[in-house]
């Protein structure tokens, strides 16, 4: 217990302090209030002028950095989306150009094929008609050969049977009657 020491410094009678409960000991009040005022004022000044603004600045700085980073990220995202859109447009353009090209090529090839086919058909038809003409010609000459052979055979038969010499014209005429 510090009553004794306290009494020496304050000069307040010991019984006054011993009677009371320490928080209600009014002799200590001036000292309590005096030091409370000094320390509280000191803390208030430090927090008001130094610590508060410093912490506030730290928080504001961080918030600014984070918001800046978020804005930057948003911008990068918008850029990426624009790039993707451009890519898709280019892709769609290229695809349609490719399709058009393929279609064009197909039509050209089809035309070429059709032309080649009709050329070939014409050629074949020509060759066929030439062949038919040749066949007809051969048939005619073969017919002629048969007539000549029949006349010669008729002249030879008549000569052998009758001994008469029949002229070629007569024989042909006689054969022609039948």
């Amino acid at each position, binding site marked *: 217990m*510090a009553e004794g020491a*306290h009494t020496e410094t304050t000069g307040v009678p010991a019984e006054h302090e011993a009677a009371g409960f*320490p928080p209600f000991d009014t002799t200590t009040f001036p000292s309590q209030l005096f030091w*409370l005022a000094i320390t509280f004022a000191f803390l208030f000044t430090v927090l008001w002028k130094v610590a508060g603004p410093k912490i506030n600045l*730290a928080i504001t700085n961080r918030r600014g950095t984070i918001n800046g980073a978020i804005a930057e990220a948003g911008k990068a995202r918008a850029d990426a989306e624009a790039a993707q859109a451009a890519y898709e447009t280019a892709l769609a353009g290229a695809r349609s150009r490719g399709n058009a090209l393929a279609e064009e090529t197909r039509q050209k090839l089809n035309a070429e094929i059709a032309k080649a086919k009709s050329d070939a058909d014409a050629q074949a038809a020509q060759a066929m008609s030439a062949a038919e003409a040749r066949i007809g010609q051969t048939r005619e000459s073969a017919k002629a050969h048969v007539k000549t052979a029949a006349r010669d055979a008729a002249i030879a038969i008549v000569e052998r049977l009758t001994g008469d010499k029949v002229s070629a014209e007569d024989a042909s005429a006689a054969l022609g009657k039948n």
Partner: protein
Amino acid sequence: MHQFTIKPLVPLHLGGFDVSFTNQSLLMVIVVLAASLFLTLAVKPNRLVPTRGQSMAEMSYEFVANMIHSSTGEDGLKFFPFVFTLFIFVLLANFFGMVPGSFTITSQIAVTFALASLVILAVIVTGFMKHGIGFLKLFVPHAPLPLLFLLVPIEVISFLTRPISLSVRLFANMLAGHTMLAVFGGFVVALGAAGGVLSVMAVAPMMLIVAIMLLELLVAFLQAYVFAILTCIYLNEALHLHDHH
């Protein structure tokens, strides 16, 4: 009750008053220096990722800022340094008092009443500066005239008892907690000295002390919070009278 006794360390007299530097003054100086140094040195404004210390400093700052903002609105933020100082001072005073062998500043009614008076003084000054004589409307609630004869005295009494309730709440909580710890500590010593089976039973109050210690840590924070939030609520009334924003 010796843990509440104020012992002078350096005798000092000023204008007839005994303003000796006491164990309580020493704790005040420690609390204030610890708070000032921590809140100033732990923070570097350009640190993007805060350290543990900076996080704590920023958390306490934002805690108080949000408290003021939510209870008084935007215009209450000019009281930030005052409420922040009150909160930090009471919080650290309570916490440092938990260190065995130290002294609890807030277990002294003189200190808590001085702080509460400061709050009420701030409320009165703010009220009259903002509303002039209209600040007295604070005592006139929206009610039918006959009821006002009853309500106005009640409002006046409730206003006048605020510094008392504000200071006694903090003082009594600290006092009761520390007294309870001392009482159970006395049980431990008494049972331990009794010998035999009783010595073994000393473990029970010891465990209780641990539990109460944890509870007191909560109370230490809670009372600092209550003190700060009530300050905000009173300031809000001074700023906005009865019109709830």
